């Protein structure tokens, strides 16, 4: 097991190095940020001076070398826009995004999975149809639109929740629901499909035939076997929620990593983009590892050595 973990950690390290290189190259292929950063009336010489001070006039390979040396020590440089360490800026925003994403994830698990099970247990009844229509809306309506509709109804009309910003739990409900809607729909459909397949399996008929109670048949024998694809997907969804809160954070003025990322991309704030992408990549790598370890718990046939 520990050998396996070491192997995975090394693999993750290579993946992160790869991500850093690719992001660095893609960013620098789009030109350098001096012309956007300087005011419009700046002359060529003034832009050139800024470029020189920031080191953008050096050959790309030299820029990469100094980036790599600093990055290896955890220093991605100063944000061009904020004049502060980029990694610190991104990490400062992480708790807000983590709070939003984990709340949305809770909604996904607590609503998506039970709705999927219910839908599978009562196929082609009204329960199934209602759940499937909601899932259809969740999968097809843009997050942006859902967010604005929730604001209009629950904040402006009913006045139950604030329209935007971060604060106490009231502020969390609407953005978490908005962010979680799409994934909830996806997990609900996946759970339904997986459960339907398992429910039709021979061993479940056997379980029923030997007189096990309904919950034991469906939850213990059914759900447990249907869980493998669901857990895989949940891992992916949590990663997506953590790194994909860009639109929700913008609509709800949520001070998270996503909003920082959008601004950084628009203004070519290279160090911040690097920091955000590296954090997102690390999150995905870690979640993948957790999911793989969970497999072994869920399915005793899977063992890592």
């Amino acid at each position, binding site marked *: 097991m520990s050998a396996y973990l070491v192997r995975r950690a090394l693999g993750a390290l290579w993946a992160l190095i790869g991500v850093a290189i690719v992001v660095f190259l893609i960013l620098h292929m*789009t*030109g350098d940020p001096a*012309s*956007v*950063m*300087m*005011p*419009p*009336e*700046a*002359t*060529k010489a*003034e*832009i050139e*001076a*800024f470029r020189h*001070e*920031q080191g953008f006039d050096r050959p790309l390979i030299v820029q990469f070398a100094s980036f790599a040396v600093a990055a290896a*020590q*955890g*220093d991605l440089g100063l944000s061009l*826009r*904020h*004049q*502060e*360490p980029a*990694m*610190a*800026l991104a*990490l*400062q*925003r*992480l*708790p*807000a995004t983590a*709070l939003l994403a984990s709340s949305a994830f809770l909604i996904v698990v607590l609503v998506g999975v039970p709705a999927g099970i219910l839908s599978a247990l009562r196929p082609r009844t009204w329960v199934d149809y209602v759940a499937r229509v909601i899932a259809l809306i969740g999968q097809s309506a843009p997050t942006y639109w859902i*967010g*604005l509709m929730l*604001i*209009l109804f629950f*904040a*402006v009309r009913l*006045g139950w929740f*604030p*329209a*935007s*910003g*971060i*604060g*106490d739990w009231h502020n969390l409900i609407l953005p978490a629901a908005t962010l979680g809607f799409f994934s909830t729909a996806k997990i609900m459909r996946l759970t339904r499909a997986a459960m339907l397949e398992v429910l039709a399996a021979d061993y479940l008929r056997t379980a029923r035939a030997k007189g096990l109670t309904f919950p034991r048949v469906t939850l213990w024998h059914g759900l447990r076997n249907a869980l493998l694809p669901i857990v895989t997907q949940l891992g992916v969804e949590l990663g997506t929620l953590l790194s994909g809160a860009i639109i929700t954070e*913008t*609509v*709800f*003025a949520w*001070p998270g990593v996503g*909003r*920082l990322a959008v*601004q950084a991309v*628009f203004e*070519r704030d290279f160090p911040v983009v690097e920091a955000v992408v590296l954090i997102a990549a690390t999150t995905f790598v870690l979640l993948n590892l957790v999911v793989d370890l969970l497999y072994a718990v869920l399915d005793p046939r899977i063992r890592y050595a």
Partner: protein
Amino acid sequence: MKRAFVSFLGALLALSPAAPLRAADTTVTISQGVDADTLNPLATTITPTFNVVQHVYERLADFGNGPGNYEPRLAVSWKRINPTTEEYKLRRNVTFSNGDPFTSADVRYTVDWIKNPANASKQTPYVRDIDRVETPDPYTVRFVSKTPTAIPPGLQNPLFIVDAKYFQARGNAYAGEHPVGTGPYVLREWKRDDQTVFDANPKWWGGKPKIDHVVFKPIPEAGARVAALRTGATDLITNVPPQYQIQLVGGTNTKLESTRSLRQLFIAFNTLQPGPQQNKLVRQAINYAVDVPAIVKNVLGGRGYEITSPIPPNYFGYDAAVPGYKHDLAKAKALLAKAGYADGKGISLVLNAPIGRYNRDREIAEAIAGQLQAAGIQTTVRPQEWVSYSDQLNRRALTPMYELGWNQPSADADGVITALFTSSAPLSCYGNPEIDKLADQARGELDVAKRKALYKQIATILHDDAPWIVMFQYEDLYATSKRLRWHPRGDEWIRAYEMSVT
């Protein structure tokens, strides 16, 4: 890395709500689309940031109402002592909020800070004309410019005075994040992209402001900004999309505020690149083909003002006698035929436009393209995202036509003419030795009447040579809660120290 981790932990703690402001105090919350990028007033160039930092920091004088009007702040008076030197008498007994006295050394330090290449300030263009700052005594500063300039060099740009001692002692990074100024407010807390809270500065030389606390709460999405105002979460929102007007006017607790902007939108011809746009007749024909009043009415819902000269009526240098182009399709077609493109044969143009940079930028470009099609000129709109757009703009690569907006807070013709029409200016795609000469002359002319006459001459030449399609100025839309007493300014600056509540 350790520092990053500490800030991560700090941010975790910061998620808990801040101490509430006293209910008896008056608090005004302002929501712009973006947060300040920094609180260092010397490291930014964007208006939303200036709007935030101007509550802590002050300039020598504020832009007043109307071109050439300044309201004294840290300077009480100023006069020209020779063509290249302007002397400012500074306000006495002013202290920074940490107790440091404000003196001429701080003014010199501020200019030197921007000029110092090691600070990589984006404001270097603002101090380009200033050769040096002299400090004959603690309450006198002299700005010596390289060449004579009619506009006081210490006043024409946002030049916020910082505490030299504090910056030197604490370093740029710390001083930038923990602002100490002479202004009407002091910073209570700044949570990036969440909120910036200011408390009235009881020691301000101007007396205690009417509003006790000012909160800047950025909300990027326009619909969410409107919702926040309607729910009472904020008192003032900027950039109100015209489609929300009815909701806000009809709201029980909201009202609209609007003002004529100093910002104009125009289409420039790139006369430096080959193509039919290098032919003056074609440029004139296109000017006749575009129906600006129709665009203002239909695309902006009437929220704009047609202008006929690149020097608009609310700028110094405007002259009503300079003619403009009236929409005239027949004239457009005749000129086009004279230029050798009868019925638009052989002419096909691209109109470059940014997406989302200015209100309705892309739609305006599409409307113009439609109008040019009607005159027989094949026109394609090429909309682009701002970052790559500005990159091409700086390389003069947008051709043959491009859309741009321009706002000059000093409201002086020089800020338009020198920056956008002289051949050495980075944003000019026009070269005319006569304009270069006249622009330089007008810039340095200290006699107001003579200077005005020079700008009239420039505007007349530009009308005939038609390097632009002069279009309109925006009407800026704001919405506020009904209790707020405030009038917007054309330069997009929002000053809470001029507000009151009922």
